[in-house]
């Protein structure tokens, strides 16, 4: 997982350097039209990473539940919350993207004129929710899968399994909160 994140970071950095070399435009001195693009990129990346994380997390927990139910079909209700729990990060990513789009006027009237500085600010404001949700959803998927295995053996322990999953959720909520404050702090 770490190596994949490093590869992703290197690809983005290399892309920026290449773009700078090809166009002769520095990332710190972009034309004004790039402000909007950077803000939109921030919105996109928060949905993109949080969505991928949630899909991977749910994929893991749902597979675990399917495996248990293949041998013991009873108890779907007990596993349902544990299956769905890693899905919340995708929603947080969507909320952050929605806030950015709202701030740049994507829903009402013409888009606002945004400077590259403001664009960068929106982009970085999206990163806490994007990365916190991506990683927490994957790890929450693992915790929920283990919770499902525990409930498969001890059917009365589903409450404890959910609480363990919620601990991982906490850090995704922190990511969303920081992104929320940062997005709202951009002066327009």
């Amino acid at each position, binding site marked *: 997982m770490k190596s994949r994140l490093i590869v992703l970071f290197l690809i983005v950095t290399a892309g920026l350097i290449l773009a700078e070399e090809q166009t002769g435009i520095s990332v710190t001195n972009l034309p004004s039209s790039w402000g909007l693009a950077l803000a939109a990129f921030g919105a996109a990346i928060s949905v993109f990473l949080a969505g991928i994380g949630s899909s*991977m997390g749910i*994929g*893991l*927990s749902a*597979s*675990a*539940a*399917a*495996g*248990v*139910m*293949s*041998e*013991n079909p009873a108890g779907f209700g007990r596993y349902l919350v544990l299956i769905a729990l890693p899905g919340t990060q995708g929603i947080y990513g969507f909320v952050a993207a929605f806030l950015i789009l709202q701030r740049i006027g994507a829903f009402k009237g013409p888009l606002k004129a945004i400077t590259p500085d403001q664009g960068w600010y929106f982009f970085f404001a999206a990163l806490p929710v994007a990365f916190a949700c991506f990683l927490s959803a994957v790890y929450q998927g*693992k915790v929920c*899968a*283990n919770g*499902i*295995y525990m409930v*498969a*053996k001890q059917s009365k322990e589903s409450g404890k399994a959910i609480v363990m999953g919620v601990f991982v959720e906490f850090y995704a909520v922190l990511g969303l909160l920081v992104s929320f404050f940062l997005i709202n702090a951009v002066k327009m």
Partner: protein
Amino acid sequence: MGDSKYAYPTGALRAKENTIIDRHKINSLADAENEYALLNLLRETIYGDFITEETTPSSFENILSLTFQRECNFIKEITPEPNITNLFFLKYDFFNAKALMKSSILDVQTENLYKDIGLISIDDLKSYINEESKPKLNNALKETLDSIIKDKKNINLFEIETRLDKSYLHYALEQSDHYLLLKDFHKSWIDLTNICSFLRFKLDSDEIELFKYSFVYGGYLEKSVFLNLWKEEMLKSSDFSNRYKSLIETALEEYQKEKTLEIMEKGKDNFLLKKLQNAKYLSFAPEPFYAFLLARENEIKILRILFVGMINKMSREKIRKMLRVSYV
């Protein structure tokens, strides 16, 4: 993402583990009035699928082997790492090979010994040993059988068994190199095999050359440890390793009283099963699948002891003494 391939199979396995007979149930089975009551109690477990109204206790072997066969097929279907679970099935190929070689050399019938849960069918193995055809075998098994067939005229049963045992243990250790729990399990298995041979040859026959021949490399205990101990007049459990101290202590005490090392076999089984009990806490790894097979095999050994003991009217105390620990 490596974990995702384990999520579904591990879920199915966890649900299946609930069918392993726990120690409380084993106690109640051991308390059964007789073999008929034992059979009735077994109806409530997964073995009940093969027990009909007409089934009698004398057909217990059939019930046990059909259930084990079904459990093995279940693991073969769901395992995400066949190369690890195949180590378990390969053990039966080596076992069958020993029985077939014995049959071929001594010209005796060993058909009742074969276990048809290996990776290769008995017929294919038989035709390979009789040099009638060349079916695809595991490399370690093939090399060992080839060497035995080559020396067929000058080899005895002890050498055949030893060569096959050593070959299997070396191969299993090599294959489990990247899996800490299984590596530890196989290293302990090698040590316990060496300890068993050492005690047998030292206490029963004083044949150091036989011990040297049967020694399996790869365990935690070096050969020199055993060779130095060979000179000792009185063996003490502390001479070996703290790891096996209590096991050897019990075996030596038992040998003093009964002049038999049977308890060592039970101790070995219990020790190895306990080693793999930690696999219950692994979620995204192949070890739980191997451990489940071992647990089921152990459970079948327990049931066999109960049936044989009750059918032969052995005392409860003696039956209980032979029982292995349960995985759960």
